[in-house]
């Protein structure tokens, strides 16, 4: 809204030559990315929005307008509610842990410790390991006869092995752990790259004032990294709310046991590529998810108190 008011003011204002040059540069720099994204993503998104208001058979190319029926159904469907609840829980647990741990590890690896290079490289490796290998390893570790159960039994915490993967109380938690563990390196690397530009003088000044490591972390490192945290939170929110692969592999596509690993993306896939021509409903779920992502990322920006993204 303020934007449109500004526009009125802008049209009356005559740009200086310098400003015009800046505009030209900006538009020139943005042209390739705007062209590519609008053709290859923008058009598809518009199509998806269109689909959500229709009963669609893409094979026969029939589109019957049905207004808000898909949305109405999605809001009243109990399975959809479960999927959104799971997805939201997943995101609310994973995002803060992921971000915080990535920050801490980056700060530690940026401090004066020995073997920096070794730790950096090792901690980055999970990102490189293939996802099928990762999932398999996790499934082994958490299987009834796996090492996690082995350790717990030895410690006397449990008597018999727990079937984590088939137990609705645990399955989503296992996926959470796997997600956190495998994505931290990505964010840590980003933070580290950004930290390279933090002037050492800031730490030195703080040290003279008698600040310890923890104080330095909260008063220098964290504020300095805020803009990148904005990005990390955004990607993390999108990544977790759109989580698909791991839930798919773990539950063999069913979202079970008892819908405990049913995520919205998994549901979208099932509708879009199922045997019922339900592309319209899949599109509706996709848009609802996009709106949820938007809301969550707005909230996260408020929490992060960084300069506004929007």
């Amino acid at each position, binding site marked *: 809204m303020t934007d449109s008011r500004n526009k009125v003011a802008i049209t009356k204002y005559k740009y200086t030559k310098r400003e015009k040059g800046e505009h030209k540069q900006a538009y020139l720099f943005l042209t390739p990315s705007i062209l590519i994204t609008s053709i290859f993503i923008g058009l598809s998104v518009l199509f998806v929005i269109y689909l959500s208001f229709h*009963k669609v058979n*893409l*094979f*026969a190319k029939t589109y019957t307008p049905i207004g808000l029926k*898909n949305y109405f*159904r*999605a809001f009243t*469907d*109990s*399975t959809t509610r479960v999927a959104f609840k799971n997805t939201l829980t997943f995101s609310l647990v994973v995002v803060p842990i992921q971000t915080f741990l990535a920050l801490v590890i980056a700060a530690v690896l940026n401090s004066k410790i020995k073997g920096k290079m070794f730790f950096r490289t090792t901690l980055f490796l999970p990102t490189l390991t293939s996802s099928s290998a990762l999932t398999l390893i996790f499934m*082994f570790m958490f*299987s*009834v*006869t*796996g090492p996690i159960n082995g350790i717990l039994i030895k410690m006397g915490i449990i008597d018999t*092995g727990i*079937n984590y*993967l*088939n*137990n*609705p109380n645990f399955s989503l938690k296992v996926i959470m752990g796997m997600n956190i563990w495998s994505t931290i390196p990505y964010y840590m690397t980003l933070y580290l790259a950004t930290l390279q530009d933090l002037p050492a003088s800031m730490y030195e000044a703080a040290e003279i004032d008698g600040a310890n490591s923890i104080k330095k972390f909260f008063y220098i490192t964290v504020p300095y990294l805020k803009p990148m945290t904005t990005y990390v939170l955004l990607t993390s929110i999108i990544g977790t709310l759109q989580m698909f692969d791991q839930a798919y592999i773990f539950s*063999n*596509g*069913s*979202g*079970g*046991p*008892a*819908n405990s690993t*049913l995520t919205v993306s998994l549901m979208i896939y*099932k*509708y879009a*590529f*199922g*045997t*019922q*021509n*339900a592309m319209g*409903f899949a599109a509706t779920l996709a848009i609802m998810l996009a709106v949820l992502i938007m809301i969550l990322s707005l909230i996260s920006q408020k929490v992060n108190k960084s300069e506004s993204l929007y």
Partner: protein
Amino acid sequence: MKKLFSMVLVVVLALSLASCGTKETGKSVEEKIKGKTLTVGIWGGNDAEAAALNQVIKDFEAKTGAKIELKTYTDINTQIQADFIGGTAPDVFYVDGSMFPFYATLDVMLELDAKEMGTDAYYSNLMDAFTTDEGKIYAIPKDVSVLATYVNTDILEEVGLQLSDIPTALEDMVTFLPELQAKLDAKYGVGQVTAMTYNQDLARNLHLFERNEASLIDENEMSTLSSDGVIKNLDFMMDLVNTGAYKTPAEIGLGWNGEVFGTGKCVIMEEGNWVYGNLKQNYPEINFEVIDMPTYLGEKSSMSFTVGYAVYSKAKEVALAKEWIKYATGDGMATWVAGAGCLPSRNDVATEMKIESDPVMKTHLAQVEYAVPWQKGTTISIINSAYQNYIQSVVSGEMTTVEAMKKADTQANDEINNSK
């Protein structure tokens, strides 16, 4: 000027039509397909399957002078739907029996003539799997796989039992399995070796669940998992599960029956013939025998899984497509099934191949005529997913079969309704 242009156009059209006509008429099929290229959509298989298919292709190319190009699908469900929508599907493609009802609703397959394709030669229940309710034939079965019972004879001997001790009726398993389990626990330690493994996929249990007139779906293809008939059969399965000697591979910490059996962690499993080659190759030291599936309620039964060849409705080379299918499901079938480790979908090929000489394959094949082909309308994938979602709660004792299946029905039917 305009007139001249339209006249030229008419002449050109007439000429081209005439030339087309002279080209096509009077030519035999052999001449028509020579030098043409056919694309065939398949999904990937192991070495042996790939080699077998390549051999069939080579033979066909040598015989006809046509060329076959393969399009290997890695995730056929996603890819072929994109191909259908974009109109870019291959001329001929594999159709899984369970997916056939869905494809049949999409108008993507060309109707085939029973006489021309010689459909009488195929096992009639497999042919039915590729025929719609209106009697239209859209695909020809290229092979079939059938479930059978695998028994680890070494372990059996170790605990002092013989193959003949294994009951032939599933009902008797309820008492036999716990006895076997007790012996296994005494010999190997508790929880080391499981008496029998099973699979929670409806694809493996349909033949049991639909016994005695029960049905998983009603006339509108809505889910009826909680109907009395299904529940009765499911309750029987739970009797087996509750013995504690009948487990899923996941409960043992492994991926599928073949892995459990191959690593000697179970004595009995029910698997398809695909596991045979796998056991020989990856677990050569395991000694086993293969017997018929146990009877249930006094009747023999098993599941079969068939795959067919269909012609794309927008195929460019229809004549060649039909020739290929006739060859691959006819003269070429023996080469294919022998290499790929599956069973022929027609009796004459089975006889000619002397399947009888391999006791394992013989046992699998012997059940093909009464085995239930895995297929159930267009909604079965939704129902299957809902079933697998809730059966776990029954196994863990959190819900009764009726409670769980009611939930599964609600979920499946909501999903079906949402799609409407």
